[in-house]
């Protein structure tokens, strides 16, 4: 039986692990390679690196991080943040990542999804969506809007429409991140997660808001997500990945328990 995945997400800035709340006030909290290795040993099913570096030098450092991770961590991992062209994707894949997450670049230029899928296969292309709850309107019938720049820029695009469009263009997976829930530790936005998961055939990763193991159970049961993305809940040592998976298993969620 296919298990539900637990995916720690590491925000990396200039080669250092960092964490913010609602996309603001980032502080450095450690070495991404060491941390990824610990999560791997604790039973993480996959790892996501999100590069929040803007500078050119920072990009070079990030590719080194990806290489170091690929040399010692033998589970899939994906890299996102600032990837805007097929050439950027190739750099990241050659450095050793399995998947690429495109977010704002895909909103601005949706063809990056189809170009990436044609060049590397749909299984490589994760479309990350930052979503904000808004009043329902003719333009945003679902009441969930796509935003970029960490929620600062509204795009006037309906999140459900965009999810289906990304699937049509060849995305292999969707990572649905609620800006309302991000960093709050109050739980995932289950209505949003479920809405997207019920309307696409590709796997959906729930993101934003994990504060307890029960939240993760809810994401994959009530939210129908295939995977739960986590950050603060493990970065500060509150829970280990092992603790979370044991809890999920005890609640009857199929998770990988032997590694």
């Amino acid at each position: 039986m296919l298990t539900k995945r637990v995916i720690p997400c590491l925000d990396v800035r200039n080669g250092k692990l960092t964490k913010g709340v609602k996309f603001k006030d980032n502080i450095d909290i450690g070495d991404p390679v060491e941390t990824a290795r610990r999560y791997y040993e604790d039973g993480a099913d996959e790892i996501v690196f999100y590069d929040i570096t803007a500078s050119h030098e920072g990009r070079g450092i990030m590719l080194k991080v990806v290489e170091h991770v690929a040399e010692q961590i033998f589970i899939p991992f994906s890299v996102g943040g600032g990837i805007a062209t097929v050439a950027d994707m190739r750099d990241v894949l050659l450095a050793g990542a399995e998947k690429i997450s495109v977010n704002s670049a895909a909103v601005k230029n949706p063809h990056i999804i189809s170009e990436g899928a044609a060049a590397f296969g749909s299984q490589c292309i994760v479309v990350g969506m930052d979503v904000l709850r808004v009043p329902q309107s003719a333009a945003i019938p679902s009441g969930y809007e796509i935003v970029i720049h960490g929620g600062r820029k509204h795009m006037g695009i309906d999140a459900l429409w965009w999810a289906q469009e990304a699937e049509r263009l060849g995305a292999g997976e969707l990572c649905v991140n609620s800006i309302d829930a991000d960093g709050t530790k109050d739980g995932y936005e289950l209505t949003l997660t479920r809405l997207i998961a019920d309307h696409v055939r590709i796997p959906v990763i729930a993101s934003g808001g994990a504060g307890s193991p029960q939240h993760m159970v809810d994401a994959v049961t009530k939210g129908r997500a295939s995977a739960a993305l986590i950050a603060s809940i493990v970065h500060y040592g509150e829970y280990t990945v092992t603790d979370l998976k044991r809890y999920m298993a005890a609640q009857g969620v199929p998770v990988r328990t032997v590694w």
Partner: protein
Amino acid sequence: MLAILDYKAGNLTSVQRALEYLSIPCTITADPQRIAASDGLIFPGVGAAGSAMNTLRETGLHNIMAQQIQAGKPLLGICLGCQILLDHSQENNTPTLGIIPGHCAEFSPDLCEEDGSPINIPHMGWNSLIMKKNCVLFNGIDLRSEFYFVHSYYPQPAPEFVIATTCYGREFCSVHGRPGLWATQFHPEKSGQPGLKLLSNFYTYCSEVHHAH
């Protein structure tokens, strides 16, 4: 030394990194002499059956592989490499290598998971095996282990070649082959410790065959 067959498919370097981590000597190559000199072949792959077959034919690698297998060289196919060892693939409606009898079919979108919800395609994530036969590749591996899959098509070899199956919407063959010629639909190089152990078992087998000759 293991030869990772270079036919321009994806993820060749992932396999190389895993072997290097295990201190197993390996090289990514399409050179017939280096392939002939190796102790075993790894035939990996991410991509589409049609373009993979074109590259194999253009480079003549399909003949080299057939000769090597005929001569008793061990081979491990992975993912796409597992599928195109068969006779035919529904993907791009392509005749494939025909080294193991059978064909490769697409997951039907009508299939459902155990809870009744329609399956996602691709089958992506960690899934378990139901062993149908003993296989030296699994020596020392806890058979409750899950392995990492990502695919939209699945192999259907002749029944006598089925080594293990996996359930996703239906039961499908996830490991097939015969002694010395194996193929896994999952990615051992991305399946953590159990996957690394499988690669290491393959190398051990290759070394033993090499020394017996």
